[in-house]
């Protein structure tokens, strides 16, 4: 349902302005802090404006999947805890949380940022499992870009635990986890005929369609997802893609 | 037998040329597109598509068959074979003054009773009200009810009632078709009528159906 506040925001955007004074393609201030959790093998806190997302990496020894007996396992899970927003509810992960986790997963997996074949300990029996858990701490819009950024930042911060007699020794580390690429996810939102980046919570309410791109350092696109219940024009895709590629370079710089 | 043209959603069927649009079509830049799988009905002043399937969505003025499904404080809730339950307020259901504090409303209509009523109001958010205050509206006693596609009801009635008159006359049976796809039948020849109705439902878009049915019943 469209209320007068939504109409106001839409009117602003049509005129190329936003309620917080940003340009349409401008992100809020981004802060990336790594190594924020001492019990995780890697972690990162990302703030985009008031949106706060934490990603923690745990490394475990697991059985490989049957169809990839010589590869490590990568798993991404997202938790939309009710503490972060009145819209989030208690219970199993919502559709949105699952979709977010799976899009972050594809951005990392398909970019080959982590070479899973290097994480095999004993074919068919034991491989490293890399578990990325995303925890939303405050939902003020653009959770996907923040979650993806936190995830790659946390991976870059991850150390592989030391093994003794095949067992993990917590707190001692072998070496840093190798990360081959730094994929960045940028979500382009369509409001009327304008494209918008990094929507605030209020702006997300009026966004009808979104396109997310996972973009690698060499500008290759590794993951694409269309969101929203409205359609897109063919010309939208190229325009959104160009915008996302430019922006991805900016965000990648924050990873050092 | 000649058939009418079948159209599919999204199909551009014609130019608008200032004509009225029915519920089965919509307009994009002066072109008229179809919403339903259905049959195109195009005339000088209106364009519409009659759907071949779909549930009944009530509109004001429809004559429908309803089944009382609840007796409430100030009226009755009525199943009209639609996603929307209708409401029959006391004032629209009973002529006399009713003191709701003293009278049990089920005295007038009880759960399971069948009524032939008129859709008297449909709000934007689909609050549906029905009324019994018209000449043709009545409580229907006994008989049976069959369901057909709501879009096929006009075919069952025929032009100026031609089809239904033939069936009534040849079978000596009472038939009341509700525009919501419920048809009430009572009399000696109920099974014959049901057979005829299902034939009409199957072959509703044939031109010359009335003659065919007439012949079938004449034999």
């Amino acid at each position, binding site marked *: 349902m469209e209320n007068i506040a939504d109409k106001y925001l839409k009117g602003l955007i049509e005129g190329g302005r936003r309620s917080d004074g940003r340009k349409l393609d401008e992100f809020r201030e981004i802060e990336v802090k790594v190594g924020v959790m001492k019990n995780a093998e890697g972690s990162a806190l990302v703030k985009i404006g008031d949106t706060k997302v934490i990603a923690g990496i745990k490394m475990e020894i697991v059985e490989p999947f049957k169809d990839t007996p010589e590869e490590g396992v990568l798993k991404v899970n997202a938790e939309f805890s009710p503490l972060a927003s009145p819209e989030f509810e208690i219970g199993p992960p919502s559709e949105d949380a699952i979709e977010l986790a*799976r899009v972050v997963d594809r951005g990392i997996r*398909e970019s080959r940022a982590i070479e899973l074949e290097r994480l095999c300990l004993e074919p068919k029996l034991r491989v490293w499992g890399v578990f990325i858990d995303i925890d939303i701490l405050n939902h003020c819009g653009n959770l996907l870009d923040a979650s993806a950024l936190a995830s790659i930042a946390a991976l870059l911060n991850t150390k592989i635990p030391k093994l003794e007699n095949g067992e993990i020794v917590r707190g001692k580390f072998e070496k840093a986890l190798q990360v081959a690429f730094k994929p960045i996810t940028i979500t382009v939102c369509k409001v009327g005929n304008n494209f918008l980046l990094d929507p605030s919570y209020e702006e997300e309410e009026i966004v009808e369609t979104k396109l997310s791109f996972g973009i690698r350092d060499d500008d290759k*696109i590794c993951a694409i997802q269309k969101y929203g*219940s409205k*359609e897109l024009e063919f010309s939208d895709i190229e325009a959104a893609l160009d915008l996302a590629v430019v922006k991805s370079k900016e965000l990648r710089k924050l990873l050092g | 037998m000649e058939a009418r043209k079948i159209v599919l959603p999204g199909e*551009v069927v014609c130019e608008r040329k200032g004509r009225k649009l029915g519920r089965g079509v919509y307009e994009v830049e002066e072109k008229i597109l179809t919403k*339903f799988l259905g049959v195109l009905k195009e005339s000088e002043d209106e364009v519409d598509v009659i759907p071949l399937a*779909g549930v009944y969505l009530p509109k004001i003025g429809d004559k429908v068959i309803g089944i009382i499904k609840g007796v409430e404080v100030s009226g009755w809730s009525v199943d009209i074979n639609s996603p929307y339950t209708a409401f029959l307020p006391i004032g629209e259901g009973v002529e006399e003054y009713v003191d709701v504090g003293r009278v049990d409303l089920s005295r007038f209509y009880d759960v399971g009773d069948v009524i032939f009523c008129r859709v008297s109001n449909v709000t934007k958010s689909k609050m549906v009200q029905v009324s019994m205050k018209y000449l043709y509206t009545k409580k229907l006693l006994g008989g049976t009810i069959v369901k057909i596609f709501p879009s096929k009801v006009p075919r069952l009635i025929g032009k100026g009632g031609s089809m239904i008159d033939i069936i009534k006359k040849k079978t000596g049976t009472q038939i009341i078709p509700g525009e919501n796809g419920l048809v009430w039948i009572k009399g000696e020849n109920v099974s014959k009528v049901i057979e005829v109705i299902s034939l009409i439902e199957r072959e509703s878009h044939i031109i010359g159906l009335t003659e065919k049915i007439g012949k079938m019943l004449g034999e």
Partner: protein
Amino acid sequence: MRKIEVELGVVTRANGSALVKFGDTVALAAVYGPAELHPAHLREYQTGILRCRYSLAPFSVEERKVPGFDRRSVELSKVIRVAIEPAIFLEEFPKAVVDVFVEILQADGSTRVTAINATNLALISAGIPMRDFVVACSVGKIDNCLVVDLNGIEDNFSQADINFAFMPNRNKITLFQGDGQLTKNEIKELISLAKKSCEKIYEVEKGVLSGKYSRQIS
């Protein structure tokens, strides 16, 4: 493209249904509604709602799939819903619900797009008011060649794939999902390949629908 087969009205209790085969991938979709939505607090006063549930039958894949709703099914259910939603006149049935159940009976790649095609045909047969068809197909890159309608093996060995759906008369995109590594130019080429393939699928589907209902007449 693999052989496409369509059968309509297989679930007679549903308002509309369709079985769609793309080669060995088989999807069955059933549509119920619009119907009264329960519980009442889920009702939207200005629009109807669409619910989709995609599932894989346990016997549809090589290794038995544990029955029930896994994370992939949750995501794909949503992806299918938002691919279909732009085409439906949901505002015509406020407070009501249209339920779509789509099950993959046999999986050999491209299951979500097959599911979308089945859903579209089931919705049309159910008499749901729609702006247009929603036609879907998958495209991808294998050994640096661009391919259409990936089967299971191709899906596993592809360098990249895109799932695509669009409204052929309105020329608008409703599903755009991709994995792998693609350059901007490859994406452009894949989109135009997907569009062409969808147009072919559209012709097949139109033929089946008007064929069935014209047969009813004669």
